[in-house]
Each structure stands twice: as C-alpha cells, then as structure tokens.
C-alpha cells in the first residue's frame, strides 16, 4: 500500500507539475510534501480508481491527515 501511494504520488506530482520534496517520509507534513490541494484531490481520485475505495468519504467521522504517515495509515486500515 505504501509503495502504491508513494508511486501514485510521484505520478500525480509529475502530471500536476509539482515537485515532491526529496526526503519524503512518514513525518513529512502533507502540506509541505510538494503536492498542492489540487494534487491531493487528484491523488485521492487516482487511488480510488486503483483501489476501488475512497477512505475519506466512506467513514462517518471526517479525517484530515496531517502527515504522510497518517495519510498512508488511513488507506491501510
């Protein structure tokens, strides 16, 4: 899952004209990862196509992951 997310992130960054920070890790704050809000919307949409689910809309409570680690954890649940 982690690999898929990181790979998709790289693809989205490339197609959305963003540059990801070099030292991408669990502690990376999403807003500082290099993807902008449009980039994240695209990332979530592409992951949904890949996985058939969007964990952000299928849950009752609204989750706003702050770091990349939290973001990945939501998909791994």
């Amino acid at each position, binding site marked *: 899952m982690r690999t898929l997310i990181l790979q998709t992130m790289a693809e989205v960054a490339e*197609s*959305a*004209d963003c540059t990801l920070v070099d030292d991408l890790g669990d502690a990376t704050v999403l807003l500082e990862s290099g993807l902008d*809000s*449009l980039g*994240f*919307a*695209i990332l*979530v*949409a*592409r992951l949904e*196509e890949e996985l058939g689910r*969007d964990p*952000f*809309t299928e849950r009752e409570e609204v989750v706003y992951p702050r770091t990349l680690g939290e973001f990945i954890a939501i998909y791994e649940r």
Partner: protein
Amino acid sequence: MSGETASLLGMIEAHPERALIIHHDQPFTPGSLSRAARDIRARHPQLQGANVALQCADSGDFLLRLIALDGFAREILLLPPCLSGSALKGTLSRAGSTHLLDHTGASAVAPPSPAAAAGGETLWLFTTSGTTGEPKVFSHTLRSLTVSTRAGRGDARECRWGLAYQPHRFAGIQVVLQALASGNVLVLPPPGDINASMEAFARHRVNTLSATPSQWRNFLSHGALRGCALEQITLGGEIADQAILSALARQFPAARIVHIYASTEAGVGFSVADGRAGFPVAWLDQGPPLQLRISAGGSLLIRSPALSRSEALLPRLTADGYLDTQDQVIASGDRVYFLGRASGVINVGGNKVHPEEVESLVREVPGVRNALVSGRSSPLMGQLVLLEVQADDLSAAACAELKRRIRDHCRQHLPKYKMPALINIVQELAVSESGKVERKHCG
C-alpha cells in the same frame, strides 16, 4: 407561399419526375411519393386537423408519413423511434397529441381538444433529448424551417445528399428539407451500422453529407467513407474543432467544408466555410438579418426574424429581442470560439472548465481518435476533470505513452486546474442516437 406549395407535398409535387429519394436501393419519384402520401391521407381521414404524433423506426416510413401529414394534420409531433412506455405517454400528453401514427397505422390516444381549429399551417413539434430528465418540445412550421435551411445556399451543382441523422431530429429535417426543397436526390440510410450507411451512400454516389463532428470522427476512423467522393461536408450539432476540420480537409481536399452553428430550439443559425474553427469576430455587432452579440456573461446572443415563437424561449430573450443561446463563446484574435454550454461547465475548486475546450485540445494529440471530458466529483475540490480518450492501441505501453503525450500537450496550453486529473483510454466512446458523444452529467 400559397395553396399546396405551402406544404411538403406541394413542394415535392413541384419537382419533375426523377428520383427524389433513394431508400433500400429503390428510387422514389415525386409522383410515387405523392401517390403514397395521398393514399395515407385517404386511409386516415381522422388525422385531418388532428394533433398527430409520428413514430417510425424506418426513415423511409417516417418521411412518407411526414409528407402525408404536413398540410393535413394540425400538429405533427416528431418522435424518436426509441421512445416507449411511460416516457412516450408523458410526451404525448404534454404535446397534446390526439393520435399516434406509426408504420402499422393510426391509433387515437386522447380526445380532440375542443379548441382545435382547422386551417393554418401545420405545426411541427420537435423533441430535444435534453441533458437530463424529460424531452422538451419546441415548434416550427414548414415555412420557419425552410427560411433557415435556404439561408446561405445558392450553388447550382448537382447535390446528392446522404442522410446521416435520424429524420425526426431537427438536424435530420434540415437535411431532408434542403434536399427536397432543391429537388436534389436524398439517399436514406439502410437500417444497420455506420458501414451499411456509408456503403449505400457510396453506391448511390452521395456527394453531400452532413453529420456531427463525433460522427465524422467515427466515419474517418472506420474508414467507411473512402468510397464517397464528397464535395460538400457539413458539421453541426456539436462544436467543430480545428482537428476534425483539418482531418476532413486532408481526406477530402476537393470538398467545401462548412460547420454550422444552430440553436435548435430557436431555429436559427449560421454557417462558417473558411475551414477554421469558430467564426470571424467581424460578424459580431452587424446589422440584420442575423445579428450576433456576446453577453456580459460570455454567451452568444442572436437576433433574427426566424426565431422560433415558442413560449419556452421568452425567458431567454433580452429586452431588445436577442435570444441568449446559453452557448459560451470567447473572442480571441480575429475569431470567436465556442466553449460549450454554460450548463456543462465543470467546477474545479471554484474554477470553471469548459469540457469542449479541453476535448478539442486533447484531440490535437496524435493517436487520439476522440475525447470526452466530464466532471468527476471530488470531496476535496468539488469536481475534477475526467478525460476519456478513444484510441486504437490499448496496450499498456501505448496507453502510458499516449497519456504522457496528452499531459505534455495539456501542460503547455492549459492552466493547472483545467488539466485532466484522470485519463481513461477506451476503445470506443458512446455516440448517442443524435450522433453526439454522450455527455454525462455527474456531480
């Protein structure tokens, strides 16, 4: 116009005895059409002065009955062959139809309205498929229809028309009337797929063909048109982009290529014949008969004596009599380009994206057969731009390469929010019965 010449039957009878319509490889002369139409009138006297809904799967059956009904019935409702069940019932009742005529005969569907007065021109009621919900109905007469069909014509060459549209549609009727009014031959499509129609058109030496840009893209990609020596090519019903205009010019170097802008409901439009997308800026703010203006909101306004008198259009009229077409346009350099329907706009985080603008750009990429852009709902941005691309090679490597080319091309020409967020490559895009790519409206 007066007497019988004011009806479709009169128009046909005015022509000399030679093939006027070819259907199933059979020629029909004005005499044979007239006899068959008068026979239908004689067999259905109850349809005189009635409000008749007409529905036939076969285009020949449909046209013959249309010829019989114009100048005979009070109103003709031109129905798509696929309409059935409660949708059919609802449309009949909304249009106030009293009878339904199909290839098996006529049946009464409602008692005649006491207000129905005989005489006057027959009203032709068209249904638009509409983007959502139930079809809308708008009315014309043979007179109002031929005002717009004759505009801009006048060449004396021998036209042999093919009918690529269904005849119950406004676009189909335009082709039928242009052919019949001028006494030229009209070749009707046999039932079946595109290839069967194209073969019939080639066999009967069709040289004049009108279709939507999506149909033309299909004709080109199926290669079915190679046998046709086309002299006149018309594109209508959708925005004609530069890619399809140029592709047709390459395949048919001798043809005059015209794209039509028409507001179906309003019954007015104009044609552009210089081979370039859009129309000249110089056409704006000119005098009558056809006056064009761009509204403050960026939509095209039209004023013309030929405007339909439908009440439904009243809310869209400006104080000085211009109709808001609700088609968004933009002036750029010496051209005015169409961007699409105001209602088809995708909203990406508050930024508006016209699907047609992105589609037309994507079609410039080599390897792209056709493109369809729609909005895909996104919890983060409201909507995202979803692109579906029709391509021939669907192997993983080819798809990856095509996506890369599309993204590179879009990146050079579009702001970020207009870039396709998701790209799906498909073998075939659905083309609806009207010949247009089926535009989905999703949240």
